[in-house]
């Protein structure tokens, strides 16, 4: 047998395959190591826990402001934060423990932002099923894995294929300037009440934020609770509501200001500005930016200005008002489930 031919076939085909894979992935850049997808100019949210640090590292010298949060905060346009060069570090499924790890990583890598905006979700006050997901390089305080390792994987090749075929894993995407957008084809939100009787409450949530605040001692912090649909707020049990108010108020003693955009309002009682009741339109997020910039509260409330009792009263009053307007009957719907 011709072993020379055998070796040449294997080695040349392997090299060709690997080089092609690398070239495709570099061109489509699904993990944002370079300038993102060069073909369709859309960047999907595949693995923001890696792609956000990748993009940050490339340009980190420029940023004096950070946005930390979950996917809900990815829609907050970083360029609208006035007076700062802001980087939106929010990523899908982000949990407070993960922001902590990322903050330590950023701090260890020399980040010293003048301003940090923390987007808090109402679900942060509960135990969300699933493990805490902190990549090895964040835990090890090292740089993200080199691009060629991640771009010589089936996973990346599959992501590139999806970018090419325009099959996004989520209803939102990032444009060629890495601003988050929502597809026109995003689902239409169908509000319904949820059975939240099994929700497990997370205790001492404020302690995690206190720890987070301690990482960046010289930074100015702004925090806000992300908007959530009125139907979701109405689904909370009495126990959960009580815990929510206590947690939010405790956090407000750490961050001044803390805005709460989840309070039922005209915006969160509509269904055409969100695709799932958690992720709101770019326009609504732009309104949030305005509040964060100016401190005005045409939308949401500033918790710090209120006593805990007043905060609860205003929130509950708003909830009751919109429940009546929208004819949400919590008891009957939940009991049907």
């Amino acid at each position, binding site marked *: *047998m*011709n*072993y*020379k*031919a*055998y*070796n040449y*076939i*294997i080695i040349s*085909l*392997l090299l060709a*395959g*690997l080089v092609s*894979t690398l070239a495709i992935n570099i061109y489509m850049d699904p993990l944002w190591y370079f300038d993102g997808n060069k073909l369709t100019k859309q960047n999907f949210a595949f693995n923001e826990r890696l792609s956000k640090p990748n993009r940050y590292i490339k340009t980190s010298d420029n940023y004096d402001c950070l946005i930390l949060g979950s996917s809900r905060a990815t829609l907050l346009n970083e360029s609208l934060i006035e007076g700062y060069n802001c980087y939106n570090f929010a990523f899908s499924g982000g949990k407070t423990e993960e922001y902590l790890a990322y903050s330590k990583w950023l701090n260890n890598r020399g980040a010293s932002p003048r301003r940090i905006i923390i987007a808090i979700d109402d679900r942060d006050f509960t135990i969300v099923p699933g493990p805490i997901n902190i990549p090895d390089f964040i835990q090890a305080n090292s740089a993200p894995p080199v691009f*060629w*390792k*991640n771009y*010589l*994987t*089936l*996973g*990346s*090749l599959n992501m590139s294929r999806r970018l090419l075929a325009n099959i996004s894993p989520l209803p939102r995407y990032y444009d060629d300037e890495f601003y988050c957008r929502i597809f026109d084809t995003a689902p239409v939100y169908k509000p319904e009440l949820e059975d939240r009787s099994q929700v497990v409450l997370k205790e001492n949530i404020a302690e995690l934020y206190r720890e987070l605040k301690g990482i960046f001692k010289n930074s100015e912090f702004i925090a806000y609770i992300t908007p959530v649909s009125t139907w979701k707020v109405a689904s909370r049990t009495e126990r959960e509501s009580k815990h929510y108010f206590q947690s939010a108020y405790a956090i407000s003693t750490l961050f001044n200001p803390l805005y709460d955009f989840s309070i039922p309002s005209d915006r969160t009682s509509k269904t055409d500005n969100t695709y799932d009741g958690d992720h709101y339109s770019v326009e609504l997020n732009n309104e949030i930016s305005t509040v964060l910039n100016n401190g005005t509260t045409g939308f949401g409330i500033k918790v710090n200005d209120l006593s805990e009792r007043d905060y609860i009263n205003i929130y509950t009053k708003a909830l009751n008002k919109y429940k009546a307007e929208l004819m949400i009957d919590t008891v009957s719907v939940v009991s049907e489930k």
Partner: protein
Amino acid sequence: MLFNSYEFILVFLPLVLIGFYLLGNGGFGRAAISWLVLASFFFYGWWNPAYLILIVTSMLFNFTIGSWLGRDDDNRYRKLLLIIGILGNLLLIGYYKYANFIIDNVNYITESNYHLEKIILPLAISFFTFQQITYLVDAYRHETKEYNFLHYCLFVTFFPQLIAGPIVHHKEMLPQFAQKDIYRFKHVNLAVGLTIFALGLFKKVVLADNIAVYASPVFSAAEQGQSLTFFEAWVGALSYTFQLYFDFSGYSDMAIGAARMFGIRLPLNFNSPYKSLNIIDFWRRWHMTLSRFLRDYLYIPLGGSRKGSYRRHVNLMATMLIGGLWHGAGWPFIFWGFLHGTYLVINHTWRSVMTKAGFYDSDSTWIGRRTAQLITFIAVVVAWVFFRAETFAGAQQVLAGMAGLNGVTVPASALGTLNKVMGFGDMLANAGLTYSADAMVLLQGDNRIIQLLLLFIIALIMPNTHEYMEKFKPVFDMQSIQYNARYKINWNGHWVWALLITPVAFFCILSLGNVSEFLYFQF
């Protein structure tokens, strides 16, 4: 550096190969050996360069003692030298591997509170220590001698076998390094080596790593005291059984394949052990070079089977207990060794009784052989539970589930499938079997059973890599392989084989993203 890493496959191995053959083909054999030694040091020091000092010190110590032992003069201090040499090695491994275990046990028994800082186990210490003990004993017996430190360094550190074996003998390797033939590049060596390496990589990154995710949640839940259902426990135990099999088999293949690229043959270390018809046969097929070490340097010096059946059983048990302890400093490992010792004693006793009664293994029917194979396999699976579990309580939880002590509930989704076979599902239900959606809740679905079945077929029925490659003598002890000519599948280096192996290798390299360590690295 791991065999299943980009650094090794795409950078280190090609560079070392190119350097070795450039020097070798140019007539610089000594430089080629030096290049391999340097590469092996780099390979070893990749994780923690500090431990290079340890391995070099260990080699200097053993080479010095071995050189003295290998001299022809009949020095009356030779035995003392050998004892010093072996004790030196045992002290080294004892400190790094067992010091904390011993202190913990002393504290437990005497209720004292001695404390030693956590000692990080240097990589491969179990392997390079045992390998050097064999060298000392062989030198003492005048079976080998070595006066060239460079050759000795290569014997100990040759990177394909350095980290997790096989445990090789000095007399097996040095004659190969001395052959001028190995310095000349041969396409056949690269072709055979590449093929075996690719198949090993497939076993590791595709078969072992993919089944590992089903073992971990089951054993974790058991450690936390959670009750396991019958199917969860069996799927967990079998997943680990196959994970370890394909992990170790894959590693052994990669070691043999990488060495063969340099024209070097390593001994066979793994020969389809789950095909064994009895536990004696199992230990002739599983980690063969460790079994060989324990047999030649422990069991036989203890008296082996020469001093009657009672002493044989005691020797077997002692050998297996130490074999268990070699795998890890913990009581579950020792108990695993005890279980295998017990199995061996039972097997030898059974064989002796049956032989006296006039029955021989070769007389067995097909059903008899399959029954023996099944019993052996189940015994091995039960022992693996102790090997994998962190505590006895965890192992007991898994075994309780496997024994059906928590009830036997079939996954609800299986009912439809079973009913397709002549209403079998309903028949079982009428007979009292219960179906539940919670039967496999830890494992999220019952298609795991199909995956396990596939692995079962590969491990128990299909020929192994060395049987496919038999004509090219991939290992130097080919007599261990009893190729079953029925399969009629032989690798022959035809271009069709290249077209089959290339996508396998390509798929494996693209699957390296989640690099995982080999299980035998921890022993």
